């Protein structure tokens, strides 16, 4: 059942519930951050509307800079602003930022500890029709290997808004990963969001021991919850952990739930290599080795299609998550 303590959206399972894209939440967060602090600045590389920085641009035109299609320049300009007591957000598609401008981010932002926030939009295959060139599946790997970088991966529009606000408060570089697909809200305004703290979104009813932990992030936390609910009907009981902060990873919470379950499925819309699942595996291999199944893209590029179709085709659907849970249970050492 959904964790009652976290004030999650009770309408999540209702088909009627409105879907909202993470970028909309992110854009709302930016406007609030801009109202709260006049040092918040936004830069964008010819994707003002697509990355939802248009409201900020209208409200604070003097603090909005359009760099044109020039992500490297955008990153390094932000680095200069960030060492000058400003809080710049750079906003583009993740394939370009942090894809194309990775070295500028590494040298001038991360190594340089400049206070820059990087919003990588359209991450994942569910970008859909635009095809593989525009579906970032490597960005978490690119960002989490960088010292000084915080990596956030919100699971719905509300969490995306909170991530933007939290990023503005952090003194240092932050990466925020955002998918395009509109999603049902899992959280509410009252759900806690603390950077670095993973939260148990789903757990078995009182008195039932969990058999497996599903650790999920971003766009697929909802799918992990749907899988958990269906597994419950088959008398398989799991915990779902929403790990919105991939770096610094919540080591304590991960070990805590794995001690209870002894088996893990990681779920993310990213390459399996180097992503959140890899981060979890690193932690567990060192501290508490248990069988793990990885849900993610398995060393291939995406293609054009509808978001939901692609999620299924590339093995990240609810069905795949359920199968992975069953598989990992068989591997479990009792």
């Amino acid at each position: 059942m959904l964790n009652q303590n976290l004030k999650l959206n009770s309408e999540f399972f209702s088909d009627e519930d409105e879907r909202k894209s993470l970028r909309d939440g992110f854009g709302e967060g930016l406007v609030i951050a801009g109202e709260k602090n006049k040092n918040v600045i936004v830069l964008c590389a010819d994707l003002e509307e697509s990355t939802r920085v248009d409201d900020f641009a209208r409200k604070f035109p003097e603090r909005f800079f359009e760099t044109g299609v020039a992500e490297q320049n955008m990153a390094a300009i932000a680095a200069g602003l960030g060492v000058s007591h400003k809080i710049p957000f750079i906003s583009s598609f993740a394939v370009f930022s942090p894809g194309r401008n990775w070295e500028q981010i590494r040298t001038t932002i991360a190594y340089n500890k400049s206070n820059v926030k990087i919003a990588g939009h359209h991450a994942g295959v569910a970008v859909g029709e635009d095809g593989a060139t525009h579906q970032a599946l490597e960005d978490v790997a690119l960002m989490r290997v960088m010292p000084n970088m915080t990596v956030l991966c919100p699971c719905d529009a509300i969490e995306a808004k909170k991530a933007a606000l939290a990023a503005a408060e952090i003194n240092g570089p932050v990466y925020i990963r955002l998918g395009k697909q509109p999603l049902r809200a899992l959280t509410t305004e009252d759900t806690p969001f603390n950077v670095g703290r993973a939260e148990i979104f789903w757990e078995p009813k009182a008195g039932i021991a969990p058999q497996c932990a599903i650790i999920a992030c971003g766009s697929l936390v909802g799918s992990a919850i749907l899988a958990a609910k269906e597994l419950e009907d088959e008398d398989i009981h799991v915990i779902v952990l929403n790990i919105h902060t991939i770096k610094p990873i919540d080591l304590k919470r991960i070990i805590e739930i794995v001690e209870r379950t002894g088996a893990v499925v990681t779920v993310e819309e990213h390459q399996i290599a180097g992503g959140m699942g890899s981060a979890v595996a690193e932690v567990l291999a060192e501290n508490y080795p248990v069988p793990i199944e990885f849900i993610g893209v398995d060393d291939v590029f995406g293609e054009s299609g509808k978001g939901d179709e692609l999620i299924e085709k590339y093995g990240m659907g609810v069905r795949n998550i359920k199968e992975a849970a069953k598989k990992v249970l068989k591997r479990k050492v009792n």
Partner: protein
Amino acid sequence: MEILHDKKLHFLEENANKIRELIIEMLLEAGSGHSAGSLGMADIFSAFYFHILSHDPKNPDWVDRDRLVLSNGHICPVRYAAMALAGYFPVEELMTLRKIGSRLQGHPYRLALPGLETTSGPLGSGLSQAIGIALAARLDQKKFRIYCVTSDGEHDEGNTWEAVMFAGKHKLSNLTEIIDRNNIQIDGFTEDVMPLEPLREKYEAFRWHVLEVDGHNIEEFVDAVNEARAIYEKPTAIIAHTIPGKGVSFMEQDFNWHGRSPNKEEAKRALDEIRTLGQRIKKEHE
């Protein structure tokens, strides 16, 4: 900036020669590093740290200081030497260049050494960072100037031209770029590796004010910086024609010295030449 009297000019010239001596000593001690570009920019760095910049070596974080951004970070020996002489840190510390635990990293690391404005080395992104600092200054209505030293070779990088376009669009008149036009890069002469000319016309087409100077004529350089301060509505690029390896005959104009440091024997010859030159400069001033 105060007026450049003859006496001050003589001091800046002698000081540039002192910087050259220190560059050779540092590079010999380090056993690696970039000789040619560092020597070539000694006059300009002498002018910056001892005449042009409004700065306080004892208070390197002073908010209203002029910003000197070094984009081509590999010539940092010239910057370190000028900073040490200006009083940012002890001159003896120069001998720690490139050694483990040193604040003088092989390429400048802002967080290691107070007085550095950016972290640099990978080419093509320094002008962008200077633009960010210039935008922040404009937003905060600060009067300080932002100077950005770039190489000519780094104009091969697309990022450089993205930055040039942006600064032109935003009429960043508080920004002055100094292009070290020494015509060499690692693989050879710039015009063979990737032709940059007509460089002046390119900048003008990107809406910049452009000046060209002899980068070893301090008076001419200071005049150009002063002119740039008087230009509103446009950023200024000063194309400084320099001799790579300036002051050491066997290094001058030789691209093989771009990324090399001298051995003991070469360093001795280099120091002899620089000191002889120093005596000559002194004599001329008497």
